[in-house]
């Protein structure tokens, strides 16, 4: 298998006469933290839904974890993790029950579930609240737990959709340390965010503009290429051309 965790060529999706994703091409290397940025409505969500096997493309090719998005979408779902701000854990279950549920869905053995439950609870320091309902935990803790649950079946790639929205500043940074840890262990991470400082934590980023990829590279390369001081500035420049 190649070292490309995600390999996308000319991927396109139309809805009627509207082209949401317009011939995008990019790849993500194994173990890379890839920031997938873009304004609301630029096509990020449509692109991600194609990559995780939930939406069939109109044209182009994409392989995720080595599997074809047209023919092997079920294999993709088994080999990726996914978490979003909107839905991640069952709030009326406890942390322990959530881990067991997702472990079961992904076909882990009871022994594996036991071991990984202990590992996650210890790593996150959640031992005291392991049997409390998730809804009673602070948002930041729920999000860190959700990330660990998304990794419970040790997927090759994890997709994170605005994982840190509304989270306090310290927890936001702790969350990114979990991302770095996962990447150091070889997991590929594709993450979207509206915090532009977080874009700078990524190994590489792409910025989608009106269905196309407007820029792609390391944060340092892009700042140099576009002559801007920050990714925030670049984002504004690309997403609203003509503005200051």
């Amino acid at each position, binding site marked *: 298998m190649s070292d490309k965790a995600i390999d996308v060529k000319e991927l396109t999706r139309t809805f009627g006469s509207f082209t949401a994703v317009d011939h995008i091409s990019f790849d993500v290397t194994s173990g890379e933290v890839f920031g997938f940025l*873009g*304004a*609301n*409505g*630029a096509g990020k969500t449509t692109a991600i839904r194609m990559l995780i096997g939930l939406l069939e493309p109109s044209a182009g090719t994409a392989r995720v974890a080595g599997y074809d998005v047209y023919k092997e979408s079920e294999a993709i779902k088994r080999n990726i993790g996914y978490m979003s*701000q909107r839905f991640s854990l069952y709030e009326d279950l406890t942390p322990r029950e959530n881990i067991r549920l997702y472990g079961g869905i992904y076909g882990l053995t009871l022994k594996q579930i036991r071991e990984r439950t202990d590992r996650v609870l210890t790593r996150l*320091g959640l031992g*005291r*609240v392991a049997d*409390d*309902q998730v*809804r*009673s*935990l*602070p*948002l*930041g*803790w729920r999000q860190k737990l959700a990330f660990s649950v998304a990794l419970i079946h040790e997927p090759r790639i994890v997709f994170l959709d*605005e994982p840190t*929205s*509304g*989270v*306090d*500043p*310290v*927890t936001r*940074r*702790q969350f*990114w*340390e979990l991302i*770095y840890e996962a990447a*150091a262990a070889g997991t590929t991470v594709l993450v979207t965010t*509206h*915090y*532009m*400082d*977080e*874009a*700078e*934590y990524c190994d590489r980023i792409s910025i989608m503009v009106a269905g196309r990829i407007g820029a792609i590279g390391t*944060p*340092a390369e892009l700042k140099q290429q576009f002559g801007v001081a*920050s*990714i*925030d500035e670049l*984002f*504004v420049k690309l*997403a*609203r051309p003509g503005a200051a």
Partner: protein
Amino acid sequence: MNAVAVEALVKKFPSTSRRAGGAIALDRVSFDVGAGELFGFIGPDGGGKTTLFRILVTLLKPDAGRATVLGRDVVKEFRALRQKVGYMAGRFSLYPDLSVEENLRFFASVFGTTIESEHARIAPIYSQLEPFRDRRAAALSGGMKQKLALCCALVHRPEILILDEPTTGVDAVSRREFWELLGTLKQGGLTVVVSTPYMDEANRCDRIALIHRGHLLAVDSPDGIIRAFDRPLLGVRAGARYKALLALRQYEHANSVYPFGDVIHYTDTRTDAPLEQLTADVRALLASQGFDDASVERIEPTVEDTFIARTGSPDEELKAGVA
């Protein structure tokens, strides 16, 4: 007269499984907002922003304390107040099946007015929405939805705007545009009270309150908040950023070490040591561990640095059972 005057406001919610005796959403919160001020509440989810705003707009009664908005008591004079307050709830609460124009027309009619007679007031915002006037609200982008909600909150000519997290989940460009609109409204003399979890938006406000777990940590101008940061802040850059971060965290004199974009923000426990010594020591530490390309310099703190310094790590609190 202050536009908002709040004194020792308390709100509790019934107990959850973990918190016998109930959770305190607001714990003796006091502040004033001057007429014509753009005033921001900055803090993460769960801090009490929404509870506070719901009390100010008469949707929730406080358990103790007193709040007046435009000189009117939020409990006793709620009916008179509702005519004068423009409110945007944190959750998108317009009618998704109605078009842009239909939503606006509906909210105007509820308050006994029309789009046409209010046109001058809402024009700066409505002009950006007009190309989409026939589109259903559900089909708008996040940024456009928020502009429509702002327009609907303005259509009855309120004397104060209270906006609960209008920019959450909205992209960086639309956020910037939204704040420009708020600046325009302030120029027109409107008092604006707004909350946000994005600390970089603090500088757009005349004054801000940092809010966390039902307490106000500080109320001041953004500059005043930053000046209160009481020790030198060092900015560290290194190619291997994450490894450098871990190395700094192991350093015996490290007080706080956090990544901010491509810079690591570092403070030292030795508060009385001269700056030259601190930078030299940190540089030497990094060099000794092989970070040859590392640079260390003093930098200006941000509102977010202050917030972190005032709240500390939530880990410690959870482990100690405070959370």
